[in-house]
């Protein structure tokens, strides 16, 4: 075997080892946090698949970098290297393989994922969300319940929910990490997002269950989040009833909007969190107490 051939074989072996190690790491590590929605499964599948694709691609460049650094490092070049200005076959193969890979990534998980996520579902519940600097207003139009800056958002598990998302002032974004999907809340525009909830969950145990504003919207942006609790249907009905409106009474014409009365809510400690009052100078109002509450809440979980 010529030395050139030996080098090619060696770097090939290095590539295979790096790829195997990388794929092993990808397949044995769970990178994704808790997932509670059906549509989010596509997201997680896409992310995992892209990691799987990435490993051999990165390994090509890394293998050459490592191999050349070990094999051909010199302290002072006494002579020039071989005058290899191109290699037709190798360059063409590189080009066409990258075309094939880009096409593959586009088709799957790209296109397949988009279509899977866009699948029509029967809507069980409509939730209207209105981003306001710096909280969320929530309404259940079918039940005639309106909540201004509620302390939490409770949703029924096993249902398909259509979120109608807009904003009253600047651009915000809907994001519940455990649901995966993200949708901007834009003033003058109504965006809908359909999510089927598969798992129960509570912000108190898992911070993936929070309706986090994900678009910079000013001083209160970081803490513009609404704790989310995904519960059984009857628990949800109770919550909605306690929130002021009759629960699960489809078809009833509820014109009178009902405001949630915070004082009757059990989760008193949360009220302070979500009702941050951002004055002229937002810093000042982030009191020590509010921060403390937060930490305690999550420590329980």
């Amino acid at each position, binding site marked *: 075997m010529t030395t050139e051939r030996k080098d090619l074989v060696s770097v090939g072996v290095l590539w295979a080892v790096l790829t195997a190690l990388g794929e092993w790491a990808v397949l044995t590590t769970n*990178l*994704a*946090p808790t997932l509670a929605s059906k549509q989010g499964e596509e*997201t997680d599948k*896409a*992310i995992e698949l*892209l990691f799987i694709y990435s490993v051999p691609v990165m390994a090509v*460049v890394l293998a050459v970098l490592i191999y*050349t*650094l070990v094999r051909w*490092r*010199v302290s002072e*070049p006494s*002579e*020039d*290297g071989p*005058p*290899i*200005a*191109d*290699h037709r076959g*190798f*360059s063409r193969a590189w*080009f066409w393989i*990258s075309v094939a*890979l*880009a096409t593959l*990534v*586009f088709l799957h*998980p*790209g296109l397949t*994922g*988009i279509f899977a996520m866009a699948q029509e579902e029967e809507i069980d519940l409509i939730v209207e969300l209105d981003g306001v600097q710096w909280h969320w207003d929530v309404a259940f139009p079918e039940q005639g319940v309106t909540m201004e800056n509620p302390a939490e958002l409770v949703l029924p598990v096993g249902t398909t929910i259509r979120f109608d998302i807009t904003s009253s*002032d600047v*651009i915000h*974004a809907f*994001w519940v*990490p455990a649901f995966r999907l*993200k*949708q901007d809340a*834009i003033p*003058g*525009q109504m*965006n809908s997002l359909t999510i089927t909830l598969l798992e129960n969950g509570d912000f108190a145990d898992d911070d*993936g269950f*929070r309706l986090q504003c*994900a*678009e*910079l*919207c*000013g*001083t*209160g*942006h*970081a803490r513009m989040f609404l704790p989310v609790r995904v519960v059984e249907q009857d628990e949800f009905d109770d919550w909605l009833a306690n929130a002021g409106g009759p629960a699960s009474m489809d078809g009833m014409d509820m014109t009178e909007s009902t405001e949630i009365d915070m004082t009757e809510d059990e989760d008193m400690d949360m009220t302070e969190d979500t009702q941050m009052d951002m004055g002229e100078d937002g*810093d000042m109002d*982030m009191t*020590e107490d509010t921060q403390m509450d937060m*930490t305690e809440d*999550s420590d329980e979980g």
Partner: protein
Amino acid sequence: MATTTDAPDDAPAIGSRGLPLAFRGALWAGIGFLAGALLTMAIRSLIGLSAMSLEPVVVVGYVFSLLAWFLGVGAWETWGKGWLGRPTVAYSPSGWRRYFGFNMDHKVIGIQYAVFFILLFLIAGLMAMFMRAELIETGRTIFGPASYNRVMSLHGIIMVLVAVTAVSGAFGNYIMPLQIGAKDMAFPRLNALSFWFWPPVAALLIGSQFVGGWDTGWTGYVPLAEVNRPGQLFYALAFITAGLSSIVAAVNFVTTAVKMRAPGLTWNRLPIFTWSILFTAILSLIFTQAIAVALSMTIFDRVAGGAFFDPVLGGIPVLYQHIFWFYSHPAVYVMVLPSLGAMLEILPPFTRKPLFGYKWAVGGIIGISVLSAVVWAHHMYTVNADSVSNIGFMFTTEAISVPTGLIFLAAVGTLWRGRLWLKTPMLFALAVIFNFLIGGVTGVFLSDVPADVQLQDTFWVVAHFHYTIVGAGIFGLFASIYYWFPKMTGRLLNERLGKIHFWIMFLGFNLTFLPMFWLGLNGMNRRVADYQPNLESVNRFVSLAGFFLGISFIFFVWNAIVSWRNGEPAGDNPWGARTLEWMTTSPPPELNFDGEPEVIGDPYGFGSEQPAHATVTGGNGGTA
């Protein structure tokens, strides 16, 4: 128009004694501002509006002060007088003074850019240290959310401007004309003009902090940018001014690269760095006007009662994002192409091999440039539920990985069987390959719609773009500095300090930004002064790594100052490179070459019996 060379030799030169012209420029700018402000107030009260309205006064005052600034800094004597038919005067002081006025020598301008942008980089880097200090634990740590947003916004815009400008401004100006054997840039006055736009940009960004700063980040999304503090207006004016500089510089780069190449320098002999500067300039020339449009519309809405983006009056907030990204996506290639070009330029002398797949690499640069025009809405997958246009933008974005792959092809092929000579410039060039690999691959996740709906606006994005823009762009800046500093100053940078700088920066960078991918996957959204408690330990690690990264630049600054004064003399060609900039003295004479350069061969013909790339004949030096 009279030119400098028309001026008689005994014409009184300016700027040779007394205060540097930049001070006069500042004074004239102040007077100009007052004139514009008073005029606005007078007109406003005449038409029955309140005279004391900050934003209209600032806009008009600024336009006046910008013109006065240029005249004061030396454009009046060297350029303006010619418009009135009077003889212009030379600006040719010696020593440090030549950097503080309207100097038209591309070598002076290159150094002006280099020093100015390294200063901006250090300042904005310090801001990043404060941001990481705030994020070292949950809750309020040092300054809370309002100040955090201000510092984050300022950090963002300064770093974007540094990344867009530093490599092309410093080395495009200094090195590119040398590489093509030109005596100067095509339009020396425009060149000086393009640099002197920058002090007003800096002044606006500093000024913005006296009126409350602004909190939209560097992207300036509306409607937030139309309802917040007046600092937003300063941001818009600064960004537009920077854009004007880019356009002026781009005209110059394109013309120079196309028209001023030495005899024999055909397109297939053009050094790869010059290719990258040429296409960077073409991108700037085509797309920069879009940012001026988006920001002018914002200013119009804020100052003059416009409603381009106000939904209540029929405006469309999303329109801003389309125009903004129509510029700002190509801008990310303006940020990285020169660094990728520099990386490919550095590999041949430090592997002693020809650049592998030269034509593929040029094709890569052109392909990236063309495709960059049609990918902008990949930043906007979440603005509406219309998945049809998302499919198109997903396709074009993923197609960019093909020409980008060609850059890697050239890099990998050049390394193979090379003689790896690990001097500091080479270490930085190798780091560009490594970092850009991670930056590129993680970008594919963001191009994929199903993955992006989770990763968009999280720390995954922060990590990804820092890997491309710092990992490739800024590492490429330092690769260029270590590579070309000897040419520009005549002295080598200290190798030991250079290596300390490199290793701290490389490790610090990766330790800082790699964990951010995990943070993004685990629900940390970006642009936040506070986060959920379970992310605290990783954030603490990131902050400490970030401070470590920050330390590396102390070694760089120390090295640059010490070596510039007392460094080891470099000679004409310390790296044994073959391109034209190494065939003249370090630093080069006023007209760049002692003789007439003529290109006769390949710029990267290492290891073969090929003739030299070029000869320089006619002067005292002869063939190099």
